[in-house]
Every structure is written in structure tokens, then in C-alpha cells.
């Protein structure tokens, strides 16, 4: 599904303001996998999200989605921004659904799955809370049946109830949908991913499967660092 090979990204490359956000990132994510991407502030998480979502082309290496450059897969990729208002380009909830040409009933189903009812359809986006806006944007992405969802800090700024509704909706997605969640709060986001990838200073430093295993591995022994050392121990 996702194939990153030696991906690097330099903001304002070739200018005096050039700053490296990603370096030498190799990552494979299979169809239907749920991956958390974490790391400290400035570690390149959000840049990685933009690259995965295909809105930004890497300045080095290759970012492929289903074998094609991620930038060519915009229609099959859904991207939920932390500042969600910047991606809802319609004045009302109903208009947001129409903007994507989504069937109205299908859009309603998505809204219902996120805890809304029909009364939400005529509501103005700017009269809604951040949590509601984010759920509306997510409903749009769900209704578009994207095969890849990239969620950038989806739980940031939400109250407990909104967090629960959003996580439930993501969990209820078809098993074939790949979900990559950028988060700095692993604990709150734990249900959104069965694999955690850590970034630090733009480099992928850890890749841990956190799924309670159906095979015989435990959390610890499926952990690998970037050198391929298993369980965090040098081989």
C-alpha cells in the first residue's frame, strides 16, 4: 500500500531558509494496517503526513501509494488536518458533502457513524465546535471511501466524548482501509494503531508492533530499531 524509500524532505530547499524535516525514511505499510506515527515536536511527523497524503512530494527518495507516486493518489487518500477548518471548503455540512460529489445518503450514514443526526446537515461549519468540525471532515473522508486515511493529530483539542466518537468511527472502518495516525499522545491514540513508528529529528528511529499477538510474538519481541535490531537489543 505505502512504500517510502529513502524519503527526505527539505523545506524551502535551495534557499537560505532551507530546513530538513525528513531524512532517509524507509517505511512499508500494508493494506489495512493501522499505524501510529509519533515523535517529539519538530521531529517531522506532520511533514511525513503531508508526504503520505500526497500533498507534498518528497525532495529526496520515493513515496509510493499502491505503486504510484503518492502525489498521484490524491483521490484515494483522505487527509484529516489538525486545523480542520482549513480543509472544510464549504459553508454548511450538507454543502461539504456535495463538494466531493458524495451521495447524500452515504454522507448521512458517515455522519451517523460519527454520532451526528440529520439536524447537523444544515448547520453552518463556523457555528460548530472544533470537535464537531473534525468529525464532519472525517465523515466526508469516510464517505469518499478512501483506501488510505492520514490523520494528523486527530484527537488534539477534543473533549473525551468527541475522542471516543472519533476513535469508534475509525475502528469501524472497513478492514481494508489503511490508517496512518500522526500523534504525540500514544496513550490516547492507542486504539487507532497496532503498530507505532517513531521519528526523531526527521529520522525513523523505531518501529514497534503493539498488537496483542495472534502469532507467538509479544510486544517487545516485535520491536525493531532502524538497524533491524529486534526487541531493542543489538543483534
Amino acid at each position, binding site marked *: 500500500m505505502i512504500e517510502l524509500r529513502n524519503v527526505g524532505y527539505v523545506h524551502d530547499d535551495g*534557499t*537560505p531558509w532551507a530546513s530538513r524535516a525528513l531524512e532517509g525514511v524507509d517505511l512499508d505499510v500494508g493494506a489495512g494496517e493501522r499505524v501510529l506515527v509519533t515523535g517529539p515536536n519538530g521531529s517531522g511527523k506532520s511533514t511525513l503526513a503531508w508526504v503520505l497524503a500526497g500533498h507534498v512530494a518528497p525532495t529526496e527518495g520515493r513515496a509510493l501509494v499502491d505503486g504510484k507516486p503518492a502525489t498521484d493518489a490524491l*483521490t484515494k487518500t483522505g487527509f484529516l488536518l489538525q486545523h480542520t477548518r*482549513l480543509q472544510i*471548503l464549504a459553508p454548511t455540512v450538507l454543502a461539504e458533502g456535495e463538494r466531493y460529489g458524495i451521495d447524500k445518503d452515504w454522507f448521512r450514514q458517515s455522519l451517523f457513524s460519527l454520532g451526528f443526526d440529520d439536524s447537523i446537515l444544515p448547520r453552518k461549519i463556523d457555528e460548530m465546535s472544533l470537535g464537531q468540525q473534525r468529525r464532519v471532515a472525517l465523515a466526508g473522508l469516510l464517505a469518499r471511501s478512501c483506501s488510505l486515511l492520514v490523520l494528523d493529530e486527530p484527537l488534539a483539542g477534543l473533549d473525551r466524548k468527541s475522542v471516543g466518537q472519533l476513535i469508534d468511527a475509525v475502528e469501524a472502518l472497513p478492514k481494508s482501509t489503511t490508517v496512518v495516525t500522526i500523534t504525540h499522545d500514544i496513550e490516547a491514540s492507542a486504539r487507532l494503531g497496532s503498530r507505532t513508528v517513531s521519528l526523531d529529528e526527521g529520522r525513523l528511529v523505531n518501529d514497534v508492533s503493539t498488537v496483542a499477538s495472534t502469532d507467538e510474538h509479544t510486544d517487545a519481541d516485535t520491536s525493531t530499531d532502524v538497524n533491524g535490531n529486534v526487541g531493542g537489543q543489538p543483534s
Partner: protein
Amino acid sequence: MSRLHLLRFVDRPSVLHRAGARSKVLVLIGLVFALSFNPGWPSVGIVWATVVVGIVIGRLGFGVVPRPPNALLLAIGFSLVFGLLSGGEPFVQFGSSEIGLGGILLQLRLFGLTLGLLGLTLLMGWTTRAADLPVAASWIMKPLRAVGIPTGEVVAALTLAVRALPLVADEFATVARMARSEPPGRSPIDKGMAVVSTATVATVRRATEFGQSIEARGPIVVNEQSPRWNVSDAVVLVAGMALVAAVALAPGP
């Protein structure tokens, strides 16, 4: 090439960087004033040469020069076509027909002047810390207080604008990127309107947040203590006066 960013500082050891913001603003005002009286081709040439020499003297490197947005290039292209259609002197013979270049030359001069002035503004931004601009504005506007103009409010507004500009520009870019992920079918005008209205909402939200933080933390106080004049200021002011004189005395349009 970079994206178009106004007021983006590049830290370099140069005479342009050492000169205070007020010297550069004064030169810019002088040049704009002179150009408004004499916007001929030689003046356009002087402005462009100033930008190029400024990039060299400021040790900025030509990587600072932004790539013009596609929309701007498209607008210029359309405008030049209409300029060509409008004809006018001088005429050139093209096969059996005569084509008037007056309109297109006028358009080219207009764009040359506009982009040159944008270049001068960018040059000031590359060599001046944004935080120094309100102090410079406060100093320059001091005489206006005598006639009752509330310069404090103007400077406070300028301070906020300078702080908000990069954030708002980033949000505009984000909205435009998100619009690109829409499936085809929606008219470009509808899409453009949606981008503008969403970006406006984002700007208003940003302004509201600023307002709330000012309410919580008290009014903006601009340090009115301007830095001392230095040798670099003198160099910039003398060179600036020479440029203003050159523009004013250059052959007219």
C-alpha cells in the same frame, strides 16, 4: 527558488543588514514617491538593478528570489494578450499586417514596475528583522502625532500584521493545497471562491485569537527607543538618495 514570503529575514553580515529598518523604509518611501512621478523604462531598470545589487551586497544569494505563483503568471499572460490586441504606437510590420506594440509595452512596463517594487519590499524583508519594522514605523510617523493622527494604534496594527502575516500565509497555502484534492467537476470559480472564503474565515479566526490574547495580556507596547544611527545607515541613506535622484532625473515614459 523559494515560495513567495514577505518579511522573511535572512541573517547575513552585510551593510544592508546592519543598517536600521528606518533607513531602509525611508529609502523605499523615497523611491516609491519618485517612481510615482517618473515611471519610465529607465526608472524600471534602476529599480531592478537596485534589487539585483541589493541581493549581491546583502550576500543573500539568488535562491531567495521567489518563484512567481502560477496564478500571477497566468494573469500576466492574459493581460499581455489583451495589451497586444489593444495595439497603439510603435507599429511593426509582420508579414503583410502591421501590429501595434503600444499596449503590450505599456503592460510590460507596468508589470516591470510592480515586480520591481515587490522586489524592493522583499529586499527590505530579507535584510530587516520583522520586529524592527514597528519601531521604525513609530519613528517615521512621529510627526503625524502633531496633527492628531493616532500613530500608536497604527503601529500596534502594523505589529500585529507583521506577526500574523507568516501564519496567515501558511494557512492560505494549506487551504489551496486542500482544494487540490477535490475530485474534478467543480468549476474553478467556485473552487476559487471556496478557497478565498475559507482562508478569510481562518484569518478572522486568527485575528480573534490575537484580540483575545491582547485582552488577556494587555495592550501592545512598541518600544519607541530607536537604535542609534550608524555608518551603515549613512551608507544606505546616501545610496538611497542617489537612487531617488536617478529615478527622478531619468528620461520619462
